[in-house]
């Protein structure tokens, strides 16, 4: 059993989108019992890159990545640190 989620990468993180993605998002298929950490593991972002995760407009703390279950049609947003523009 699998589910599909939308992952959106903004700013400098966009370079880590899989080939064939749209401007800033991709659809990922994952096991129905996947945790957030499993989905993040599918995106090749280097470990030293900081980012913030927001699922359906809720900020997810880093310590909750392993215990947050993703749901069908979730929008998972990864934000790089804000920098002055």
């Amino acid at each position, binding site marked *: 059993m699998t589910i599909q989620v939308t992952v959106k990468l*903004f*700013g*400098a993180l966009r*370079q880590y989108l899989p080939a064939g993605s749209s*401007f800033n998002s991709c659809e990922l298929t994952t096991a129905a019992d996947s945790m957030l950490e499993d989905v993040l593991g599918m995106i090749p972002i280097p470990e030293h890159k900081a980012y913030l995760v927001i699922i359906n*407009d809720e*900020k997810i703390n880093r310590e909750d990545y392993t215990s947050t279950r993703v749901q069908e049609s979730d929008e998972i947003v990864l*934000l790089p*640190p804000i920098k002055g*523009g």
Partner: protein
Amino acid sequence: MSWQQQILRVNLSTGDCKIEPLNMEWAEDYLGQRGLGSKYLLEEMDPAADPLSAENKLIFATGPLTGTMASTGGRYSVITKGALTGAIACSNSGGKFGAELKYAGYDLLIIEGESENPVYLHIEDDKAELCDATEVWGKTVWQTEELLQQKYRDPLMRFASIGQAGENLCRFACVVNDMHRAAGRSGVGAVMGAKKIKTIAVRGTKGVTNANPAAFFKIVNEVNARMTDRDGMSRDGTIDMMDVTNRFGSLPTRNNRQVQFEGAEKMNAEAMHTPNANGHTNLVTNAACFGCTIGCGRICKIDPTHFSVKDKPEYHGASGGLEYETAYALGSAVGVDDIDAATYAGFLCNEYGMDPISLGGSIAAAMELFDIGAITEKETGGIKLEFGSAEALCTISELTAKGEGFGKDIALGSKRLAEKYGHPDLSMTVKGQEFAAYDGRSMQGMGLAYATSNRGACHLRADPYEHDFETTDIPGKAEIVKNSQDEVSFIDSSGLCLFPGGCGWTLDDYRTLVAAACDGEWSEERMQETGERIWNMERQFNLKAGLSKKDDTLPKRILEEPATSGTGKGLVCRLDEMLPEYYRLRGWDEEGVPTQDTLQRLGLLSTPVTP
């Protein structure tokens, strides 16, 4: 060393232009650009003087690395008492003008007095002369550059000019160089207009010397190689931040009533890259300032069928487009999601010489005044000044640029405007300067940074971003803001840009370049102390100008109205918890005045603390 060790001093009242030696003791203590220019300003003028009077001075200052091969080494600053704020103003610009001024042989250009009739300053190396500006007074920045280029026929001559906004003393008029780079903030262009100096035309052929060029270039190359994360900035520019702040909930929207903008996706990097229904793409290419290896600048075109320009072919060409701050101020701040309208208003800012952040912030305040009925179509001359109206944005921007109709009220800046119409709380400003594109509720450290910025609300005077991104908890915020203010003060005095810091450089990379350029021992401690000295000196200027603790605050909305959405939903800025700690860390008393011990430690005792 990479200082030219010379100043050009121009007295507009007498017409004298003379070359003086640079005070090298001050250069060692204040480095250059922001620090050194501010030191001269504090020493030479009464900070209590009216910013639009002859007593105010206008200083164009380069840094030791300006004009060198260090990446981004093209920066200069305009330092004066701000027409918008009444505080010390230091407005930083890129382009090619700064390097050219340095090549003419000057670290600083000090302009004093005021001219009876409009003039411009023509500099070619040691030759400097004031010329009759009748032919360009009343012209736009773009027309001025074109006319004087035709006259001098030197494609390498660079210009820093005011447009009609500066001539008309618009409180947020800026100084524009190289057509679309600007010393934008605090109304430095109004000071230039009050002095009746239209433009500075400069050509330099001297280059920048260095005691050991081979060693310097080796270090420059090593440091440049560490700028490993710049592709995103080159490709998408600063406007890429639009999605990030919007999703985070720190994108000021409709005069900070909201912190997320439903139209952000029509104003972001993707929108700039993507053809519209007519097949028109906003972004043409990117652009770099002198010596820059990032190239974050946007060169854009307005859709020629768009209502703003369909009958104005002069705006169909490519020019400086929306950066993140411009896209916020002329977009979410006024509730407009029309990228062509915002680009047009941005073109007007470059053409007529206005700070887009303050223009957008002032229009946003006026739109809220209109919304609550404090102003009506009677005051606006029939314009329906409603949030979200692209037509109103374009029309009111034109009127402000030209100093006509209700545009004269917008040109006051939002503080004076909101006071005039009886609702001072609706001005989203600190020290009279409009907010940049971050909300101080989801970004608590930014709230403190705005409140304590010496030049008024500013996003480039501290670096609380990463900590704010991590947490809204208060512990640690004051220290991060204080330390990063000192670091930024140092970088702003070097001749380099802040952006390499977001593209891979560390603070030590900046220090290494300064040490290589200045032939001295520039340790981390000296770097931090120099920045701290500059910050405290700016504070001294402001105290003598009559500012005090009461000016280190935020609008009522940010302190009392909780954010309505985003990661900071339900929060107000807890400035009262951060400010006392900030003062303590700064070595200031409870009233925000540097103590004698602090001044002595930083070598600032010679300048009186209080008015």
